[in-house]
């Protein structure tokens, strides 16, 4: 099906594309490609890259491990608690990350109510790598929750009931029926969460600080180096850009392999995440 759009819509669309595309092209043009391998092996850059990959992986796993059950419960809740739960679960998506970081700091930090209890037990979270993972999961998990919960609500509850009448208990229904049907939404939600984790800056710097090798992730390193050593900052930026592009591309390819009906559910599910 081909659809034509009015000329002025096309003109505005071009401006929009330029607004997004031009800075990306500008960045790619300025990256000192020849020196990138050398720049990335410098200790500070290497530490930041390694830390980012580790924390991003950890926070993504955490997001899936906790976000999936949260989405499953939210989708089945009814009434005012469901509405409240949904708001709480999605607020970090629209909250300025620095505010999120502040909230984490005053709660889990050494002088916060939870942090004080933890430090009595000898556990310190503030300004550790664990704090980075928590900050990333705080901002990233809602993307997964929203994607999966949307897909869950458009899922056919009768199919699950049918599975139960065939003798499948609640866990078997979850593993064999519900989760496989949600796979496209889980994949897209996970990649959104991973991308968000990778780019996390505000909450991390507020809650975890900026210690090389401990809490200084790629975005923090880029911010620090942008005045001092622009070339290193650009090289690291290029790495982030490539990783983000790979995540988006990978998700797209996975989505395309599914049959039409399943894909329809998946795209319906990603819409709320995309809008947020």
């Amino acid at each position, binding site marked *: 099906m081909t659809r034509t759009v009015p000329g002025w819509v096309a003109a505005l669309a071009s401006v929009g594309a330029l607004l997004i595309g031009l800075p990306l092209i500008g960045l790619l043009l300025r990256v000192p490609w020849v020196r990138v391998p050398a720049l990335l092996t410098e200790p500070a850059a290497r530490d930041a890259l390694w830390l980012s990959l580790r924390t991003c992986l950890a926070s993504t796993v955490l997001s899936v491990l906790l976000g999936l059950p949260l989405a499953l419960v939210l989708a089945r809740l009814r009434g005012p608690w469901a509405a409240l739960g949904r708001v709480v679960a999605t607020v970090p998506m629209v909250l300025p990350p620095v505010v999120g970081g502040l909230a984490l700091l005053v709660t889990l930090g050494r002088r916060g109510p939870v942090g004080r209890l933890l430090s009595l037990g000898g556990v310190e979270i503030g300004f550790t790598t664990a704090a980075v993972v928590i900050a990333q999961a705080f901002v990233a998990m809602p993307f997964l929750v929203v994607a999966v919960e949307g897909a869950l609500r458009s899922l*056919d509850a*009768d*199919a699950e*009931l049918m599975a*139960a*009448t065939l003798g499948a*208990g609640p866990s078997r229904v979850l593993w064999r029926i519900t989760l*496989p049907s949600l796979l496209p939404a889980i994949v897209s939600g996970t990649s959104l969460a991973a991308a968000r984790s990778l780019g996390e800056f505000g909450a991390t710097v507020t809650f975890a600080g900026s210690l090389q090798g401990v809490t200084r992730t790629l975005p923090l390193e880029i911010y620090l180096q942008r005045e001092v050593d622009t070339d290193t900052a650009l090289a690291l930026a290029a790495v982030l850009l490539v990783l983000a592009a790979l995540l988006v591309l990978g998700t797209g390819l996975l989505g395309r392999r599914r*049959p*039409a009906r399943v894909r329809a559910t998946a795209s319906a599910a990603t819409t709320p995440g995309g809008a947020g």
Partner: protein
Amino acid sequence: MTGLLIDIDLPGRGVRIELAVPAGQTCALIGPNGAGKSSVLEAVIGVLPPASGRIELAGRALDAPGVRVPVHRRRIGWLAQRPLLFEHMDVAANVAFGSQGHGRGRAAARRRAASELERVGAAELADRLPWQLSGGQAQRVAIARALASDPGALLLDEPLATIDVQGAAEIRQVLAERLQQAGRPALLVTHDLVDLWRLADRVVVLERGRVVADGAVADVLRRPRHQFLASLGGRNLLAGRAVDAEALRAGDLVVQGLAAAPLRVGTATLGLIDPAAIAVHLRHPEGSPRNVWPAVVRVVERRGDGVRLGCLAGGQTLAVDLTLAAVAELGLVPGLEVFLSVKASQVQLYPR
């Protein structure tokens, strides 16, 4: 008892019913929309807990004071309007899912699935994915899957309602055979007279949550009482026996019609006639109609834009729909002697 016992109160749905379906019997539940048929099925499946009373299957309480067996342990098989196949599994895996649910090993479940698919004539579909099936094929697979789980009782919720006429006839045949072999109690909700005739032994009419009539299908269709007729969509039913390949005798009436396959003489047979397909004449008509019967007009009543006559012919009551103009022109009043005619092509014949 060995069958399915339902004796429940569902005050939220205004349903209170007591019904015992012995093993091997298929009991049809009919009645207007909102009569409570679906509520009864939901209660038996286990998603609608009765406020009081009990549901028992083969002497085991599924719902009783202090007892509430969860859906997956009730062994109640369910066949819905939609096939509800699991979209991410192929057909063989769908059917094996039902079989595996009860502790069978994977290989045994696969073998059972293959044999169930064979029995519903869907063996060649085993490797397909659900979205590659037609509605009728999908429903065959759903039948195989429901039976592969060895349910203690089967609930059939208008299983043929969304399938085209030709497909429905074939699947009805499959279902009739499998129900007979299974020897389980079965509850069938339907609005279709042909389902009733082909699949059910007994029919129970629900109205406003109560059983208002209960009888053997053959008796009910031979002498339909008002409650049954009201529930079955206004077609004339003539139940009798085949007298040749394309005719049945009901009472003193011989009815020529069309059958999907030639009838065997003596077979119990049902004829269906749309009230609008019957013409009324004051004198014996000339021409082609194969069925012409002398009759007496018993009732004349307004119905929407037209008139419905109740006529008595050969001991059978027949409803006839006419326009107001036709009624006026013929001067039809109760007690008048007339002739009814209907073309054989307007009469469907179903052997049982």
